[in-house]
């Protein structure tokens, strides 16, 4: 039921909740197809010229106002997340561009096998779609976001030509890679949505400042505020910023009618729409669906199965770093966009676990970041501090392990009974434990990472067996599937319960694969938007 105490605004064809990676893509596609689309986004536009990488206090800003953890950042537009029952802290950004403002823009694709884990390995579930069905949308997304990379990777199917050559490897990258070469292991330059040359609208080439994880001053890193959103707005889409959605509203028949929200001035409003698209990410979307319980949807919207908020997957990260005797200016170049190794990606049951993992190669940053540990323990205080700092500065390289985290129903996002955001809306609460399979994967990966670092000449190897602040990939909490008893949305992202409700963010993932998810999220968003375009006659008001 609509409970708005303010007059409804003009009804739009499509209301999109969230202006991040998926919301931007879906909005642009639909607006370009002639739909009247409006997006409600709780955060604001960012001005790249004001990103903190040009501030004298950038090392302070990185850990505070530009920290990826919303519980640390605590901007007005952030909502708190109770993560006390999770060894992994979720990280995200709330604003136009969503988490792509802070992301690393490392953009591998799923492998074909990732869509068939039940058939191949007897675990979790197969996706209701295949790699081949998604491929054209991966390509379309690469074109809009702009991909630097190179074809020929033997670990992946061939793909369309990348828009730009790879980002340079750097002397630090070459050093790390030498370990993989010695061991005869796979590595390949990363696909990255970072310009290695001018590409897109007013977007420069990367100038290797190393700090685009605080927003990219050069606009070289692709974020949807500078890629999809200009297109969407030109095609007539509108976006209201500072608009925090309280609930999706429904009519007596249970269909979505729009959303109640609080505008930037604190006014309660309602936006009516013929269809609603959720793009609030793998935590924001289940939170909102659960907050949208009503007489017709007592357990929350689209939650007749009780699966909304369940099967939360993260990609728990282990981080293995080594200190090299050489000085390699490791702060030059994007932090995590050198290359990857998928030597151990596909299942080999002799390893004692199913599925596999990717190594993502990492640089390290400036003196305060190094002193405070960066990817490892802080430099000790007292005597010995200076020697250790000098050893690490410019010499630490790391390997992040992205293991495939399989879905488990007990890993959940639900509503915290007490915690709320600044508008009094119940905040999400996480319950997450690492499975044995994931732990075994990480341990296997740690052992091999040590070998690779040693082969490359690293001396002081440090292992973080599971980084706490690594919940950057939020997946699985409103999974897709063909069976309405076992999934929340169908293979088009359309809710089984509410036919004019769609979900396009990482919530719909059936499994998480062992790669960064955003190209897949955006490809799925485009595919859902395309489906809506094809079925426009079904969107009855």
């Amino acid at each position: 039921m609509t409970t708005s105490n303010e007059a409804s605004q003009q009804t739009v064809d499509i209301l999109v909740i969230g202006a991040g990676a998926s919301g931007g893509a879906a909005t642009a596609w639909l607006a370009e197809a002639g739909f009247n689309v409006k997006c409600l986004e709780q955060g604001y536009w960012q001005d790249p010229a004001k990103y903190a990488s040009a501030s004298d206090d950038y090392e302070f800003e990185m850990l505070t106002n530009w920290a990826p953890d919303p519980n640390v950042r605590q901007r007005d537009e952030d909502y708190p997340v109770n993560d006390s029952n999770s060894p992994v802290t979720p990280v995200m950004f709330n604003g136009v561009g969503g988490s792509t403002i802070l992301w690393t823009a490392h953009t591998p694709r799923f492998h074909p096998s990732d869509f068939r884990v039940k058939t191949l390995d007897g675990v979790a579930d197969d996706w209701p779609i295949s790699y081949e069905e998604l491929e054209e949308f991966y390509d379309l997304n690469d074109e809009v976001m702009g991909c630097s990379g190179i074809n020929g990777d033997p670990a992946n199917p061939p793909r369309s030509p990348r828009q730009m050559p790879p980002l340079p490897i750097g002397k630090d990258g070459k050093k790390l890679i030498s370990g993989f070469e010695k061991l005869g292991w796979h590595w390949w330059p990363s696909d990255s949505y970072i310009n290695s040359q001018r590409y897109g609208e007013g977007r420069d080439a990367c100038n290797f400042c190393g700090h685009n994880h605080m927003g990219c001053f050069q606009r070289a890193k692709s974020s949807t505020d500078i890629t999809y959103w200009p297109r969407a707005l030109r095609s007539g889409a509108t976006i209201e910023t500072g608009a925090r959605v309280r609930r999706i509203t429904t009519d007596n028949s249970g269909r979505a009618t729009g959303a109640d929200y609080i505008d930037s001035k604190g006014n309660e409003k309602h936006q009516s729409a013929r269809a609603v698209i959720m793009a609030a990410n793998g935590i924001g979307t289940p939170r909102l669906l659960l907050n949208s319980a009503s007489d017709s949807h007592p357990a929350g919207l689209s939650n007749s199965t009780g699966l909304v908020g369940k099967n939360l997957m993260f990609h728990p990260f282990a981080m293995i770093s080594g200190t090299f005797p050489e000085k390699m200016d490791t702060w030059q170049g994007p932090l995590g966009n050198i290359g990857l190794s998928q030597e151990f990606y596909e299942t080999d049951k002799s390893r004692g676990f199913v599925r596999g993992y990717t190594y993502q190669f990492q640089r390290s940053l400036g003196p305060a970041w190094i002193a405070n540990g960066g990817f490892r323990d802080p430099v000790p205080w007292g005597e010995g501090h200076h020697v250790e700092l000098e050893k690490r500065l410019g010499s630490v390289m790391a390997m992040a392990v992205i293991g495939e985290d399989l879905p488990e129903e007990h890993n959940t996002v639900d509503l915290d009974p007490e915690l709320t955001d600044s508008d009094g809306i119940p905040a999400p609460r996480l319950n997450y434990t690492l499975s044995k399979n994931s732990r075994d994967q990480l341990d296997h990966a740690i052992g091999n990472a040590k070998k690779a670092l040693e082969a490359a000449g690293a001396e002081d190897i440090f292992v973080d067996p599971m980084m706490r602040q690594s919940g950057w990939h939020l997946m699985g909490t409103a999974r897709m599937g063909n069976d309405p008893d076992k999934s929340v949305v169908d293979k088009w992202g359309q809710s089984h319960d509410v036919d004019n409700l769609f979900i396009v963010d990482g919530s719909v993932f059936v499994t998480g694969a062992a790669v960064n998810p955003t190209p897949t999220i955006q490809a799925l968003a485009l595919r859902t938007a395309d489906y809506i375009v094809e079925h426009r006659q079904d969107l009855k008001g």
Partner: protein
Amino acid sequence: MINETSRMNINEDLLAAILDRLIPAVDDVPSAGKMGITAEIVRLSGQQARFQGIFTKAMQTFESANSEFVLLDVESQDDAIRNFESKEPGLFNSLLTISYIVYYKDTRVHKRIGWSGRTPQPEGNTMEPWDDSILETQRKREPFWRKI
């Protein structure tokens, strides 16, 4: 602007004495407590939620457990800090983190460690261009992704 309220709550002499032990003198750079950076530590710690409150609490907790700290010999001071570190890791960590941030933005320190001190932007850095020959070995490998 210095947050006067938190400044009043911080014993800067004590902070300087702690800093002297955390980051000792090296070459021509004095120990951190003698560099005149305490006011900046207090200022920055008051700027954002991460350090607000917790830094003040760290200092107050430390002070109430170690009221004679500035009078102790250096070994006893180190013991007191180690004790605080193990009993109050969260509080200690906030103190150490903000101290390192401020110490490592000092130009005297930059000069000593050979750090340019430039902000990452707008200048950025120059990297050598992409060199395809680095892929020579990998290109010889047969595709090994799992066909389905």
